[in-house]
């Protein structure tokens, strides 16, 4: 029997491993493929439609296989950061919120495609341009908005005399007081979630005339009478219509509370009704949706656009451009929108009267909210500074601290100090 010393064995094994690592590889067939990165949708049929209908259709037509890479909810920014920093990964990516403005240097100019699509399909909403145009160039092709609107219980509101959803914040406050007394409090997120907090707090601030920063993108203007009035309203709104837990809520919390029939009004995407229709039909029957209430300076909504961008380091830029043109053609687009009811609200006027809106009229306020929807940080232009303010929850915590008893003057001062530090380098 052959015997080998332990030392000799380790030497041979080591050399073998090195040889395997640097040795010639067997040639593999090159396949034409593209990778599209997306965050998992709350609406499962939406992802399934792409995987089962759109991707096979594109492969049949062009021979190019599209890999639909899904990342978990909330992890898209991290994934895009990794891809951008390493210069490898997906060719096309979904973007949302302020991502096009953070990653603009790594994204291809797709103005020509955006122009073509706009001309063919009724023109873009202004909100689409706000979400996709960076320094005069379209860096991403807007796909849709995921609106954040008011979701309310028609049966419980009716019990306190409201057959329609209140038009103003003050009227909503009056309804909320009565509903809380009836053990049906409101539930609006004031914690550190991703979207359900910004979804109502920025519109509230704007509707009272407040803003973080001037349209010049430099001057901090948070310390104003308008901001103070919005904060004073939020404090009493919290105290008289809600309960303490909302201060610690993250995004899933209001959905859980809704389906537990714990709250009578919240601010959320359409998914709350979509899921209720599937899993809680009795709750779905008494769920309705409405635009945000108006304040003294008007009615506002948050802009949370989903778009598609091409990485400029993709080795298949032309293929990616061709794919985006194909994807955004109405033949494909209409079906993809319809697969998620209207959870993804089109940003092209050509879909304003699409049949999908008639399927569920309770979703129509989401379409109409696009008229006065803006990105966080508005009226300042979107920038890395507005992204930093969002990441540090400056506005959310300003309101939340006021709700826990800190004075209006103090919370505004604290937010102003933070914003001046954030915008100091501008």
């Amino acid at each position, binding site marked *: 029997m052959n015997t080998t010393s332990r030392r000799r064995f380790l*030497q041979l094994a080591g050399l073998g491993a090195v040889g395997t690592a640097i040795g010639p590889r067997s040639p593999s067939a090159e396949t034409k493929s593209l990778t599209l990165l997306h965050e998992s949708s709350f609406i499962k049929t939406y992802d399934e439609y792409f995987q089962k209908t759109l991707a096979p259709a594109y492969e049949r037509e062009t021979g190019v296989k599209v890999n639909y890479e899904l990342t978990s909810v909330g992890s898209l920014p991290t994934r895009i950061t990794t891809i951008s920093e390493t210069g490898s990964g997906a060719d096309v990516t979904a973007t949302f919120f302020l991502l096009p403005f953070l990653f603009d240097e790594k994204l291809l100019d797709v103005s020509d495609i955006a122009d073509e699509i706009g001309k063919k399909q009724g023109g873009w909403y202004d909100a689409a341009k706000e979400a996709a145009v960076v320094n005069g160039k379209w860096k991403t092709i807007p796909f849709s908005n995921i609106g954040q609107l008011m979701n309310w219980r028609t049966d419980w509101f009716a019990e306190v005399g409201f057959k329609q959803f209140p038009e103003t914040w003050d009227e909503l406050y009056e309804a909320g007081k009565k509903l809380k007394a009836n053990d049906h409090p409101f539930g609006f997120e004031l914690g550190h979630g991703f979207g359900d907090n910004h979804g109502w707090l920025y519109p509230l601030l704007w509707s009272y005339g407040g803003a973080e920063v001037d349209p010049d993108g430099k001057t901090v203007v948070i310390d104003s009478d308008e901001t103070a009035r919005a904060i004073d309203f939020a404090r009493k709104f919290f105290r008289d219509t809600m309960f303490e837990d909302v201060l610690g809520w993250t995004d899933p919390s209001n959905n859980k509370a809704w389906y537990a029939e714990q709250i009578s009004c919240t601010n959320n995407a359409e998914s709350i009704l979509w899921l209720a229709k599937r899993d809680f039909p009795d709750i779905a029957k008494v769920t309705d949706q409405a635009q945000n209430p108006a304040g003294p300076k008007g009615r506002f909504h948050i802009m949370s656009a989903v778009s598609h961008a091409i990485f400029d380091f993709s080795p298949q830029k032309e293929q990616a451009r061709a794919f985006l043109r194909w994807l955004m053609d109405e033949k494909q687009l209409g079906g993809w929108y319809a697969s998620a009811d209207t959870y993804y609200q089109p940003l092209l006027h050509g879909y304003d009267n699409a049949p999908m809106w008639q399927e569920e009229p309770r979703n129509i306020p989401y379409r109409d909210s696009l008229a006065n929807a803006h990105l966080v940080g508005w009226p300042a232009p979107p920038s890395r500074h507005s992204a930093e303010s969002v*990441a540090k929850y400056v506005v959310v915590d300003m309101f939340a601290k006021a709700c826990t008893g800190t004075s209006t003057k103090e919370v505004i001062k604290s937010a102003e100090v*933070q914003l001046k530090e954030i915008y100091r380098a501008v």
Partner: protein
Amino acid sequence: MSIRSEPLAAIGRFPRRSASVGVWLDRQSVFSWLMMAPPLLFLAALVGYPLCYGILLSLQDRPVAHPGTFVGLKNFATNANDPIFWRVVFNTFFYTAVATLLKMVGGLALALAMNQQFPLKNLVRALLLLPFIVPTVLSTVAWMWILDPAFSVLNWLLVALGVPKPGPSWLGNPILAMLSIILINTWRGLPYYGITLLAGLQTVPPELYEAATIDGAGGWQRFRYVTLPLLRPIILIVTLFSVIFTFADFQLVYVLTHGGPQNATQLFATYAFDIAMGAGQLGLGASVALAMLPALALLIVALTIYLRRG
């Protein structure tokens, strides 16, 4: 083929042969370095490089996907002017100190209890490791339900005991939120302390206890003068690791509160992540993460010196 140990005499011999790779590899100095190289490369790639890159980033204004510009210590100055940063410093130290203390005391008690004889001892010991084995994200989601206002089993119990409805807001109240994450961290880390100290307890020679008993020592005195001194090195090592893990905790807070309410549970790791990944400020984020380093380094040096003196 079988593998056998080479006799020591053979290792020391260097027969005169023509210079070949085999002979060169056989040399003690070459072979030992060859064996050391993989772990050293591993450490350099996975610890050394990220650390150096992190230091480099912290000295730059480096927005994500944009080239960086050297700014010296400006990021650290920005942190010094940031009220949330100081809140994060306080939170992290408080969280680490209280959770570590609870784990140390609880772990010791657990180890002492597990060292006794009782039926199904091995099964109970294995089950005790569950909180440590279950992935943190998974157990945190379970805690999210336990602390949820609508579904909280904790509040259900409290209400049944006479606390007014709906019971405490575990994650909405800033103080209770901090206590909640400390509680969960303690629950998760207790088995690590318990099992490690149990291993230490089993190495204490029974003769020492017998001698102490003959000398008239009671239960407390046996613990104070026999058990504790012999366990001290293990307690210090476990504490060292526990402090490092707790100080840099991320998953628990990220899943449960995301640093809320109003930054009451924001820690170094979660804040650095928000700034680097949420705001795309890689330089500033790195500077927040690196702010942990001096405190941890000091602690490690102090504990190591103490351990050597002991």
